[in-house]
């Protein structure tokens, strides 16, 4: 036990945390600060102070990833750092995977609430490691190193860094494990564990940690990377205090967070409209067909309804009331991860370019219903792939805020949503030939960081360049991915046609890839993506959702003979109905309309295809400028058949010029024809309501749909009331799953 409290003015840090919470609840100001004294009296000093810390954080990140880091961390910056108050609230952040800034805040608060000050003690030079979703983390694969910062004998803050690992020693190789259904499948767990002292990581910890994962070298590199960054931040804070003084520092960090809250509320009032916003998204789970564990053999659709109330004071109130139940699969999501998601999207939509810290967190109320996927309350479930729920669910937030931005006139800030971070193909194997013979390799391609962004109200969505959890998304280089996944060399990566959500402004497009297994044995392969439902909240104002993923694998192929004979092999899968695999390969070609696949074994010369997501569209496709459609055809974004049917654009390929040319007259006629088709094939809302209601009352729903309704009706009285009222169903209405 520490001899004397490490908090300020002789207090324990738990007392400081309680005091902070009480003052906020009482005054709605961070630490009860109602005036920004420093900012008002000497704004230049205040801004310089903030900028110097911000610079130190960015510098720490950029330097640390060059000190030591695994390929994922170094190539696309899968890391971030933040500086926290003694109570665990972020003051200033680096760039990078910012979704984790608030998750580390929760980890620090966990240590404070669990009296770490007494046992195991919090001392200068201590090092703590956390990757437990029950303490705020997203999933075990995101690993956090957190160190306390002291000035004399007082704790004056924490530095935290997080990196994403290539492998976490779970039930199978990989970083987002499909087959994990309980905590004990999730890989190695560190629950805010002390792993070092005197600024050195203990040897016994490093030995254990490296034996706990399949990529020990990368684990060690990333641990050193995080610690290096944390120590740089600690040094920068000490230097800051030497310049500005400890009294200035103590007041400044609290004012900076209070200012963060004020900036957020001001932005809401400046850019949105008060009122009620709603959107809904879904994800499919195909355990019944894929899981090997009996209790995981359930097919589900996850209901992800979001309501946001923007109140008159600029505060946002988010609620996932009505969300589906948690379960024995990997897609359960902890509260810390959801708070982090709220925070990271707000930094992109509303508070970019200003003081980004936990001030925004204090300006938002969240409701995550207990027992749902959005707050299971059960640490023994698996939290390995919370992203499957979190990412599409938060596209609802982007869409909701976009309704407000649109009405306020800021159309350039509108985004209809974004593509799911997929197609997460994973697995691993062992080299059985070549210079690395005998070594393990992991398939953890991180080109999943570059998905399609949804269209805005004034332009098309960004192609292959968005990840909701990292504002600096990047596909990375194939050559880097092949460093650690050399057992599956790429054969091709090409733009996938018809992969962008349709609309007046189309969503971002994306690539498909082809790889094969080489020089390896004991190869496991699995994949995660949506497949039977569209991911996310769909398009906006008449735009369509982006396409779904599917699974395509070829086993027992003749690829070796094809190589030897220098024949053509598949470079893409542009049309699943007329497959290139089927045309060019001999072997067992497996196509599945869903894309969540439990691990299978692959052998040398087996092949697979995967595809990154497009983004959703905005506006009626019939209003898309025909010249833009012509460009889409020439860029291979869409095919002639689809632009004719959806955009009403008639085009002919000019063989001499090798380009598509629009027939404008025929296009006008075709667009009129589509408007007439809409009249003929649509019905009144009353007819629709009757027909749709019959699907419920006449038992026309399949089991996963019924299960979704049953869970939402049982978990939420409010959602139940709305459902029954909308369909005019009796109060005792229930849904039974056969």
């Amino acid at each position, binding site marked *: 036990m520490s001899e004397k409290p490490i908090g300020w003015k002789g207090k324990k840090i738990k007392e400081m945390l309680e005091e902070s919470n009480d003052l906020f609840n009482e005054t709605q100001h961070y630490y009860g600060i109602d005036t920004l004294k420093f900012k008002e009296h000497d704004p230049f000093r205040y801004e310089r102070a903030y900028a110097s810390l911000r610079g130190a954080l960015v510098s720490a990140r950029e330097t640390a990833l060059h000190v030591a880091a695994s390929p994922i961390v170094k190539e696309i910056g899968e890391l971030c750092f933040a500086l926290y108050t003694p109570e665990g609230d972020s003051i200033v952040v680096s760039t990078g995977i910012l979704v984790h800034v608030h998750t580390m805040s929760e980890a620090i608060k966990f240590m404070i609430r669990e009296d770490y000050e007494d046992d195991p003690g919090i001392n200068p030079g201590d090092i703590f490691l956390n990757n437990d979703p029950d303490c705020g983390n997203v999933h075990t694969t995101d690993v956090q190193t957190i160190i306390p910062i002291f000035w004399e004998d007082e704790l004056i803050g924490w530095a935290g860094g997080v990196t994403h690992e290539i492998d976490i020693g779970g039930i199978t190789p990989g970083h987002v494990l499909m087959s994990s259904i309980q905590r004990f499948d999730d890989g190695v767990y560190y629950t805010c564990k002390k792993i070092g002292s005197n600024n050195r990581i203990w040897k016994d910890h490093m030995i254990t940690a490296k034996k706990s994962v399949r990529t020990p070298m990368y684990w060690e590199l990333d641990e050193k990377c995080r610690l290096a960054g944390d120590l740089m931040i600690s040094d920068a804070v000490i230097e800051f205090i030497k310049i500005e003084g400890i009294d200035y520092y103590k007041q400044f960090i609290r004012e900076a967070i209070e200012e963060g809250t004020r900036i957020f509320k001001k932005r809401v009032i400046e850019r949105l409209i008060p009122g009620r916003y709603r959107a809904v998204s879904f994800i499919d789970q195909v355990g019944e067909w894929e899981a090997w564990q009996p209790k995981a053999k359930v097919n589900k659709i996850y209901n992800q309804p979001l309501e946001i109330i923007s109140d008159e004071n600029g505060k946002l109130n988010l609620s996932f009331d009505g969300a589906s139940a948690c379960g024995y699969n990997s897609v359960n999501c902890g509260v810390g991860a959801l708070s982090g998601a709220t925070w990271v999207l707000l930094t992109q939509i509303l508070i970019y370019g200003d003081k980004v810290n936990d001030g925004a967190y204090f300006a938002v109320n969240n409701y995550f219903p207990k027992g749902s996927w959005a707050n299971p309350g059960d640490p023994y479930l698996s939290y390995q792939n919370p992203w499957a729920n979190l990412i599409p669910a938060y596209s609802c937030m982007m869409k909701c805020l976009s309704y407000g931005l649109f009405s306020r006139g800021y159309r350039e800030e509108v985004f209809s949503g974004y593509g799911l971070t997929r197609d997460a193909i994973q697995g691993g194997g062992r080299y059985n030939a070549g210079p690395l013979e005998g070594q393990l390799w992991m398939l953890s391609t991180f080109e999943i960081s570059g998905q399609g962004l949804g269209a805005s109200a004034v332009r098309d969505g960004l192609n292959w360049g968005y990840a909701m959890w990292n504002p600096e998304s990047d596909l990375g280089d194939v050559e880097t991915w092949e460093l650690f996944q050399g057992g599956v060399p790429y054969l091709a990566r090409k733009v996938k046609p018809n992969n962008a959500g349709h609309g007046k402004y189309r969503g971002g497009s994306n690539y498909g890839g082809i790889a094969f297994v080489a020089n390896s044995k004991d190869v496991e392969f699995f994949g995660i993506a949506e*497949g039977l439902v569209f991911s996310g909240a769909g398009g906006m104002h008449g735009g369509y959702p982006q396409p779904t993923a599917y699974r395509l694998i070829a086993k027992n192929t003749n690829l070796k003979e094809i190589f030897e004979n220098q024949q053509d092999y598949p470079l893409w899968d542009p049309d699943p109905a007329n497959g290139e695999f089927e045309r060019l390969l001999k072997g067992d070609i497996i196509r599945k309309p869903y894309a969540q696949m439990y691990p299978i074994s692959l052998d040398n010369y087996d092949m697979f295809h995967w595809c990154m997501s497009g983004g959703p569209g905005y506006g009626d496709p019939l209003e898309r400028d025909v010249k833009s459609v012509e460009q889409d055809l020439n860029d291979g974004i869409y095919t002639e058949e689809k632009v004719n049917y959806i955009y009403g654009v008639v085009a002919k390929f000019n063989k001499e010029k090798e380009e598509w040319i629009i027939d404008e007259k025929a296009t006008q006629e075709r667009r009129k024809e589509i408007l007439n088709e809409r009249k003929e094939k649509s019905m009144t809302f009353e007819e629709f309501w009757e027909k749709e209601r019959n699907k419920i009352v006449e038992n026309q729903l399949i089991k996963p749909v019924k299960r979704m309704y049953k869970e939402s009706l049982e978990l939420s009285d409010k959602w139940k009331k709305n459902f029954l009222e909308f369909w005019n169903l009796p109060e005792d209405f229930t849904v039974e799953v056969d």
Partner: protein
Amino acid sequence: MVKYDKKTLEMMIEGKLSWEELRLIISGRKDADRFEKILEILQERVSWPEKIILPLHEHLYIVLKENNRIVKCDCGFEFGNYNENWKTKCRVRVRDTFETIEELYLKDMGSDPTWQELREYLCPGCFTLLDVEAVPPGYPTTFNFLPDIDTFYEKWLGKQAPDK
């Protein structure tokens, strides 16, 4: 204070600004008079006389008609009180078969209709596609946005709503 002229905003609405021009607007400070200017531009563009209180959608507006706040399409079709979901006045096309979904998406790249259907909400006046919902069969129609108009005008803009 940042301000944009009417022509620039008109070009932005029409999607005619170059990326270089648009990027400056996106990354710059916002113009505080945007709402009023956009309202003025939109009011000039519609063919009907009712005053627009709030733009709701690419084609829909909350307007003042005989002291009622109603939702109106730029084609002139009226959807009724803004407190009620305008989608319930739409014509609807449901794509709930593989055949109709694969008209839009390639095989295996659209939803399985037994898991999720597409609903296209069309304006009964001009048949513009106003919204697409991708939801499981039997899911209630979503009421996406109900603005608090009085709080917006009185508390956030510091003036009375046009009908007050």
